[in-house]
């Protein structure tokens, strides 16, 4: 399967003449990359994706795929695969007919359609369900059909709009693995829209964090997590202690805070709550007139502290990430 680069060049989209959904966004997505657009609802991530797909026409700026300017190419000629949150399967067609749809539109000969549909269904482990209708399938199965339908046309680009959002947690994690594995196997460029930071961190090669129509930061998951550039990114990704006092603001991840005896402490405080998370415990500690979040990983024995206990907090200055103001 071939893959293609995607480039959004200073793309702006306004709705109803006033709501700026996407504001001068520039993105370079590499060929074969798993690229996530991450942000809260209304940040412009879906609109960006829909402009790549061709459902929305940018007010200004251009969209390039594989080095070609496709801004004016209609949706049905863009040769992309897309998976929707609602799956958007054709309810009046069988699983096989759903998957065959894109091939039929391309006038692929019938025997070849049958072969490729079978292969695509095998790929998503749905062999045997060809004659079912979408309404007779579970959510996970529907998601797989949607995936097979999008991939069977061998698109250069696969667009996913919160594709796992409707699945329960366990199934979602399983599908995350499967999707990632499939993407790597096929080498397709995948643009993944999500508001779930854990999902983005787990699956992506790179992430663009968006807020209010703008891209706040683009980077690999580790980079985004460990070196958030803005206060928004720091706050949106995982739990964070924002240190606003002092001349320049900084951010400190809870796991970088150690709970130490009061004597060795940088700050003295009192445990407010202690949430047992299984592999770790998350403490809320009142200290110095505010609340700190501290995560203690359990390696070996737990050092149980309960609400009301006096604790000391300590961290290294190098773990404080400076934020742009």
């Amino acid at each position, binding site marked *: 399967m071939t893959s293609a680069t995607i480039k959004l060049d200073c793309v702006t989209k306004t709705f109803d003449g006033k709501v700026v959904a996407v504001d001068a966004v520039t993105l370079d997505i590499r060929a074969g990359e798993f690229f996530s657009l991450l942000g809260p609802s209304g940040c412009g991530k879906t609109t960006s994706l829909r402009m790549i*797909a*061709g*459902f929305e026409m940018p007010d200004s700026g251009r969209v390039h795929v594989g080095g070609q300017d496709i801004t004016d190419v209609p*949706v*049905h*000629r*863009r*040769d*992309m*695969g*897309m998976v*929707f949150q*609602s799956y*958007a*399967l*054709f*309810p*009046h067609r069988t699983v096989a007919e759903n998957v065959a*749809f*894109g091939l039929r*539109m*391309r006038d692929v000969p019938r025997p070849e359609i049958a072969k490729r549909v079978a292969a695509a269904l095998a790929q998503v482990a749905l062999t045997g369900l060809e004659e079912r*209708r979408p*309404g007779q399938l579970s959510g996970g199965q529907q998601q797989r059909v*949607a995936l097979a*339908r*999008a991939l069977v*046309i061998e698109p250069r680009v696969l*667009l996913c709009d919160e594709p796992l959002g409707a699945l329960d947690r366990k199934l979602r994690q399983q599908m995350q693995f499967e999707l990632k594995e499939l993407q790597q196997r096929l080498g397709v460029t995948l643009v993944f829209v999500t508001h779930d930071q854990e999902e983005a961190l787990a699956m992506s090669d790179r992430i663009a964090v968006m807020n209010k129509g703008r891209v706040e930061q683009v980077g690999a998951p580790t980079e985004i997590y460990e070196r958030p550039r803005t206060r928004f990114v720091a706050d949106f990704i995982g739990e964070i202690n924002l240190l606003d006092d002092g001349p320049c603001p900084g951010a400190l991840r809870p796991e970088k805070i150690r709970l130490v005896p009061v004597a060795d402490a940088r700050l003295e405080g009192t445990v407010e709550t202690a949430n047992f998370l299984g592999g770790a415990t998350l403490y809320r500690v009142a200290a110095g007139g505010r609340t700190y979040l501290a995560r203690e990983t359990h390696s070996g024995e737990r050092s149980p502290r309960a609400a009301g206990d006096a604790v000391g907090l300590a961290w290294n200055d190098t773990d404080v990430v400076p934020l742009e103001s």
Partner: protein
Amino acid sequence: MSMPPNKQPFDLGKAAYLGLNLLLLAFLLAPIAIVLVFALNPTPYISFPPVGVTLHWFDKFFETADFMRSLWLSLWIAACVLVLSVVIGGACALALARGNLPGRAFLTAFFMSPLMLPAILTGLALFQSYLLSGIGRPLWGLIMAHTLIAVPYVLRTTLAVLHNFDRRIEEAASVLGASPARVFFEVTLPLIQPGVFAGGVFAFIVSFDQFPVSLFLVVPKGETLPVVLFNYMKFDLDGAIAAASMVSILLALAVVLALERLIGLKAYVKL
């Protein structure tokens, strides 16, 4: 040893619900039952209890040329109205739901307005305008009048389907390479079809049973069945009327069942 089943407490609400439904059913079906009794009873008036059973009135209905002519005419008109109102109503609904038209609320109200107006006024107004514009009262004028009344039914059911329509399904088709026309025929049309045809069934029945609008628009020897029955009733009120009603009901039922069979009104989609 298995446990004895737990005794379900008597659920008053459930019983009342069941009772109410049975009552409603009886309320809806009782008139039909009365008509049937009248149609099978030999006396030319409603007598209860019935004094016997005869098919005489059915025979009279089928033997009377005026009834037969008007019955077929009514069926023919209703079939035309079904087709026309499905096409017009369906197209209107799509335009209203999808067209991004200015004044959409106004347009919707406008197309629905034949439902708000007493049909007798619609009939009279059409009659007047037909005569004034020199059209006279051609058959197509009557069909158009029925269509006018029937379109809102198709419009309403189709709009309801379109309202719940997940447009992502159409987007999925277009991103898979379907041109707008193919999206319409491959996806949109099959999915709104149950709504359109449910409206079509209403349209058929509205036309077949139409009296007030037809009243002014029928021509001598071109009267529809309801008009003929109404006029027949003024002079000969007998069981033929009831027989005609039974035949109408059965025909309407047959058409609904046929359409159901043909098109499958029971949507396979949760729309």
